[in-house]
C-alpha cells in the first residue's frame, strides 16, 4: 500500500518536469515532497522546527514561481535537502541535516537494498536469484534480437524497409524515464536515513567547551603571555590601519568609480584575511584550558577589542560600499559585498559569545551555518533584478544601461515602463523593446507546468 503514493508521485513528477522548464511545477513538487514525508512521518510535523522548515521550503518554491531566479532555485534545492535531512534526525545541526538530506536524496535506495537483504535469510537470497533469472530471460533475448535485426537489415532491403516502418513514437520513453527517476527520488526521501558517523558525533557534541584533564598552570601562563603580546600588537596594527583609512576617506573630496571599486575590493580582500586570522587566533588561544585560567581576563579583553576593531573595519568597508552604490547604483557584486559584510559581522559576534561563554568550535559552526542558511532564504525571497533596475534607473547618480539589459528577464517590464515614461529613442529603446518582446514571447510559450507569476501580467 505504501507504494501507491510513490507511484502516483512518480507519475506526477514526470508530468511536472518532463520537457519542462522551472515554474509552477517546482511549487507543486514541493507540496508533493511535503505530502510524501507527511504520509510516512506525520508525528514529526508536530515539531515546530519541522513546520518552520516546511514553510521555508514552500517560501523558496514560491520565490521561484515569482522570480524564477537562479538564487531562488538554489535556495529551493538547499531548503529541500535541509528539510529531508531534518527527517533523518531532527535534533542534529543544520550542516549534518545537509549531509543527511543529500545522502538520503541520492543514495538511500541502495542502503535500503542492503538492509532489506540482511533482514531476510536464505529465502530472500533465492528471490535475488529469481530477479537475476528474470533479467536474463528478458534482457538477453531482447539484446540478441536487436543485434540480429541490425544484421538482417543490412542483408535484405525488404526486411530493412519493413523494420523502418515500425513506429514506436506513440510510446513516450522519456516520460517513462522521468517517472522512474521520480520514483527513485520519492522512494529515497520517503524514509530519510542518517549518515551514522557524522550524525552520532554531532548528537554527542554539545556547544560548551569542557575543562581538559591536562591542566598545567605553568604552560597556560606561557600561552597567556604569548597571546597578550600577539593580540596587543595586532590591535595596534589594526588601529593604525583604521586611522589611515578614515583619514584617506576624509581628505579625498570625491572618488571616481575605479578608485571606489579599488577601495571596496582591496578592502574586502584585507577584511577576508583579517577576519579569518582574527577568528583563527582567538580559536587557537581559547581552544582549551586557557578559558579556565584565572589570569586570562587581560587576554579576553584584548580579544574583545580585536573583535570590536574588526567590526569597525567591517563598517568602514560598508561605508565605502554605500558610497559606491549611491554614486553608481547596485550590481550583484556590490550586493554580494553587503551580504559578505553581514555574514562577517555575525561571525565576529558569535566569536565574542564563544569567548565570553566558553563555547567550542562546533558552536561557531552551528550558529554561522544557520545564519548563512537564513540569509540565503531571505535573499532568495527578494527580486534582486527588479530592485537593482528600479534603483539604478530612478535613484543612482549614474546608470550602466548595458548592465541592466544584461540582467535576467525579471526587469523587462520595469525597463519597458521606464522606456515609455521617459519616451526613450534610439539604441536604448531598441534594446529594451527586444528584451521585452523576447520575454513576452517566452511567457506566452510557457506550458501550465512552466507558469510563472509574470504570466498573469501579460493577459
Amino acid at each position, binding site marked *: 500500500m505504501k507504494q501507491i503514493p510513490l507511484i502516483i508521485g512518480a507519475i506526477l513528477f514526470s508530468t511536472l518536469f518532463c520537457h519542462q522548464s522551472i515554474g509552477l511545477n517546482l511549487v507543486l513538487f514541493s507540496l508533493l515532497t511535503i505530502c510524501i514525508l507527511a504520509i510516512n512521518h506525520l508525528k514529526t510535523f508536530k515539531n515546530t522546527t519541522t513546520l518552520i522548515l516546511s514553510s521555508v521550503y514552500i517560501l523558496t518554491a514560491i520565490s521561484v514561481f515569482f522570480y524564477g531566479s537562479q538564487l531562488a532555485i538554489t535556495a529551493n534545492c538547499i531548503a529541500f535537502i535541509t528539510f529531508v535531512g531534518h527527517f533523518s534526525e531532527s535534533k542534529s545541526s543544520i550542516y549534518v541535516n545537509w549531509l543527511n538530506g543529500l545522502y538520503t536524496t541520492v*543514495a538511500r535506495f541502495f542502503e535500503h537494498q542492503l538492509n532489506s537483504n*540482511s533482514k531476510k535469510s536464505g529465502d530472500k*537470497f533465492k528471490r535475488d536469484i529469481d530477479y537475476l533469472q528474470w533479467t536474463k530471460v528478458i534482457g538477453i533475448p531482447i539484446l540478441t534480437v536487436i543485434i540480429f535485426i541490425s544484421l538482417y537489415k543490412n542483408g535484405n532491403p525488404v526486411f530493412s524497409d519493413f523494420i523502418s516502418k515500425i513506429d514506436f513514437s506513440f510510446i513516450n520513453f522519456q516520460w517513462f524515464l522521468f517517472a522512474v527517476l521520480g520514483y527513485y527520488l520519492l522512494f529515497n526521501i520517503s524514509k530519510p536515513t542518517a549518515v551514522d558517523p557524522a550524525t552520532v558525533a554531532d548528537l554527542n557534541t554539545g556547544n560548551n567547551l569542557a575543562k581538559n584533564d591536562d591542566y598545567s598552570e605553568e604552560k597556560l601562563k606561557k600561552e597567556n603571555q604569548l597571546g597578550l603580546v600577539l593580540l596587543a600588537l595586532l590591535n595596534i596594527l589594526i588601529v593604525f590601519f583604521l586611522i589611515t583609512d578614515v583619514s584617506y576617506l576624509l581628505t579625498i573630496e570625491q572618488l571616481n568609480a575605479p578608485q571606489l571599486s579599488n577601495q571596496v575590493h582591496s578592502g574586502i580582500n584585507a577584511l577576508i584575511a583579517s577576519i579569518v586570522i582574527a577568528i583563527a587566533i582567538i580559536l587557537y588561544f581559547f581552544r582549551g584550558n586557557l578559558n579556565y585560567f584565572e589570569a586570562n581576563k587581560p587576554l579576553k579583553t584584548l580579544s574583545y577589542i580585536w573583535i570590536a576593531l574588526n567590526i569597525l573595519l567591517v563598517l568602514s568597508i560598508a561605508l565605502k560600499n554605500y558610497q559606491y552604490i549611491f554614486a553608481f547604483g547596485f550590481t550583484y557584486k556590490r550586493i554580494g559585498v553587503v551580504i559578505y559584510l553581514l555574514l562577517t559581522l555575525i561571525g565576529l559576534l558569535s566569536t565574542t559569545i564563544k569567548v565570553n561563554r566558553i563555547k567550542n568550535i562546533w558552536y561557531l559552526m552551528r550558529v554561522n551555518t544557520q545564519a548563512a542558511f537564513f540569509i540565503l532564504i531571505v535573499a532568495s525571497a527578494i527580486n534582486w533584478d527588479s530592485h537593482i533596475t528600479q534603483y539604478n534607473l530612478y535613484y543612482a547618480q549614474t546608470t550602466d544601461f548595458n548592465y541592466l539589459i544584461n540582467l535576467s528577464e525579471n526587469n523587462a517590464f520595469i525597463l519597458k515602463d521606464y522606456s515609455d515614461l521617459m519616451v526613450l529613442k534610439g539604441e536604448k529603446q531598441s534594446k529594451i523593446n527586444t528584451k521585452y518582446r523576447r520575454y513576452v514571447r517566452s511567457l506566452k510559450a510557457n506550458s501550465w507546468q512552466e507558469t510563472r507569476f509574470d504570466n498573469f501580467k501579460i493577459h
Partner: protein
Amino acid sequence: MNTPLILAKSSLLSFCIFWGIIFIVDFEPGMFGFIVLSIIPISIVCSAFILFTIFPFFWRKSNEVSKANIFRTYFPFYAIIVFGFSLFGTIIAKFYIFPISFFASAFFTTMQAWVWFSRDYKNKTPQ
C-alpha cells in the same frame, strides 16, 4: 570474495544503463555496431574504477570490521562525492545526452557495486 563476478555484473549493469538512456532519448539505428563494440571499453573503465575506488575498502579492512560497518561508515560519503562529480560533469558537458548517460551509468553502477561487495560478505558469514 567473488570480485570477478561483481566486476562482470557491474560492467553489464553499466552497459545497460548507458545504452538504455541513449536508446530512450536519442537512438539511431546506425549505433548498433558501436553498441556491441562498446562492451569492451565500458567493461575496462567500469572494472578499473571499481577496483581502484571501491574494492580497497573491502580488501584492506575485511579482517577488522564487518563489511556492513564499512558500508555504513564510508558509503554515504562515497555516494555524495560520486554524485557531486557526476553532477558537475553533467553540467560542464552542458547536459548533452552522452555525458548524462555516462555519468548516470557511472553513478548507479558504483552504488550497486557497493551493495554487491557488502552482500557478498554477508552471504558467507555464519549466522
